[in-house]
């Protein structure tokens, strides 16, 4: 005899509780994961320290660079980390297991989104404080603040949608490799390097990427002169990406590997 009262009494917890439970679990697991921390904090902090040490000597100005590093961190938290964790959730049968619980698929996705938001916010605060300690002095204006806030939120949605497309279709190993490769490509293409530094012929292509849009909005927020085709263009770019990738993710995401 187990001594347990096994009389059936299966009642779902309220939806807000389920989402909070899932968000807390995902956040706890990500924060404990060394590889995710490396991408989310260690590499960006290293870049801030390196910039403080030698940036002036090699011609990399502090003002746009710190904002670029924050954008790089958001890219890792919004894309790389959810892609890898979700792919392994499929591999380990976690998603299949959770289907037979009151956690709805929408609850799971909202919990994941909350995890991304919490991690991204914490990361932005840590990197921002590190930047300030390194002498960063952003000069935000109301307009650029609104644009940056909207762009970052939409950009995180787009990043996470891309992560779900990759993780929901590829094997865990392939996702691991591709997510890290795409992280590096994103870093090189418009995240760390301002749009204006690229040749004119390549700028429209780069400007159409959500990574570039997020980074440019943060650079403009920190005081860099506006770049791009029209004011608020970063919102349009990230909004279009967010809508498209969410539609695709809903169609192609598979819950089992």
């Amino acid at each position, binding site marked *: *005899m*187990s*001594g*347990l*009262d*096994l*009389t*059936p*009494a*299966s*009642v*779902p*917890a*309220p939806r807000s*509780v*389920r989402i909070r*439970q*899932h968000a*807390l*679990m995902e956040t*706890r*697991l990500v924060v*404990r*994961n060394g590889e995710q921390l490396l991408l989310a904090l260690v590499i960006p902090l290293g870049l801030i320290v390196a910039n403080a040490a030698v940036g002036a000597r090699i011609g990399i100005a502090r003002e746009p660079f710190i904002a670029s590093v924050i954008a790089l961190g958001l890219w890792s938290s919004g894309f790389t980390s959810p892609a890898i964790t979700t792919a*392994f*959730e499929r591999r*380990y*049968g*976690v998603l*299949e*297991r959770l*289907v*037979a*619980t*009151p*956690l*709805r698929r929408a609850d799971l996705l909202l919990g994941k989104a909350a995890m991304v938001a919490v991690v991204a916010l914490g990361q932005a605060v840590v990197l921002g404080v590190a930047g300030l300690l390194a002498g960063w002095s952003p000069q935000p204006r109301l307009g650029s603040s609104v644009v940056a806030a909207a762009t970052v939120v939409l950009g995180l949605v787009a990043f996470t949608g891309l992560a779900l497309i990759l993780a929901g279709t590829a094997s865990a190993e392939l996702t691991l490799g591709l997510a890290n490769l795409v992280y590096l490509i994103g870093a090189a293409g418009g995240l760390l390097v301002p749009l204006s530094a690229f040749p004119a012929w390549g700028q429209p292509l780069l400007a159409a990427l959500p990574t570039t849009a997020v980074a440019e909005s943060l650079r403009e927020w920190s005081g860099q002169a506006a770049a791009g085709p029209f004011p608020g263009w970063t919102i349009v770019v990230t909004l279009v990406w967010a809508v498209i990738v969410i539609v695709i993710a809903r169609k192609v995401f598979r*819950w*089992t590997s």
Partner: protein
Amino acid sequence: MPAALILADVRLSLGGNVVLDSLSLSAAAGAVTAVLGPNGAGKTTMIRCCTGILVPDSGRIEVLGAVAGSAAANDRVGLMPQATGAWSGVRPSELLEYLAGLYATPLPPRQVAAALGIDAFAGTPYRRLSGGQQQLVNLAGAIIGRPELVFLDEPTAGLDPHVRRQVWALIRDLRAAGVAVVLTTHAMEEAEQLADHVVLLDHGRPVAAGTVAEVSAGRSLEQVFLELTAPDLSAGGVA
């Protein structure tokens, strides 16, 4: 008592292979239904259809009076997957607290951990647990929400005889409490010990069904199993 689970003429093909073929069975509340079959017979696929992970090409699946995979069904079932089913870095205590938190009136996680002997390794990351310990955690996760119907996919595979008997005792407790238990197994002794009703699958098709006495008809269940089923020789066949 109405059936907790009904599968009626369920057919499913995956990648051009027929995995479930005219599968019909039912499982009653307060009874243990054992689904037997060799590797690749379609046992795990059947469970995946019952939880809505896979959608049959044709046929009907009713779970606790609701459509398989619907919230009304999945809210009230428990699932013990055959392999893993947990984040690699999660600790058993965290996993049980998390799963319990999805329900309004769950079993107390510490009580479940103590009853199954999980408290001895409750703080060890899941990936560092032995296969048997992982099985116990998966079993605990399946019952913590106090389900009306529980699917146990090879619940005692890899367990030593002591723990196997402990799991059998829990399954009997579930039955006594009125839970409908559907378990898959290769272990004929397990079916003989526990099952009120057995269904023997071969290549996704039921080839025998009834009580153990009815199906075995004076022979051992293993003899019947060997006579009525063929091994799946395809590598990596669907379980």
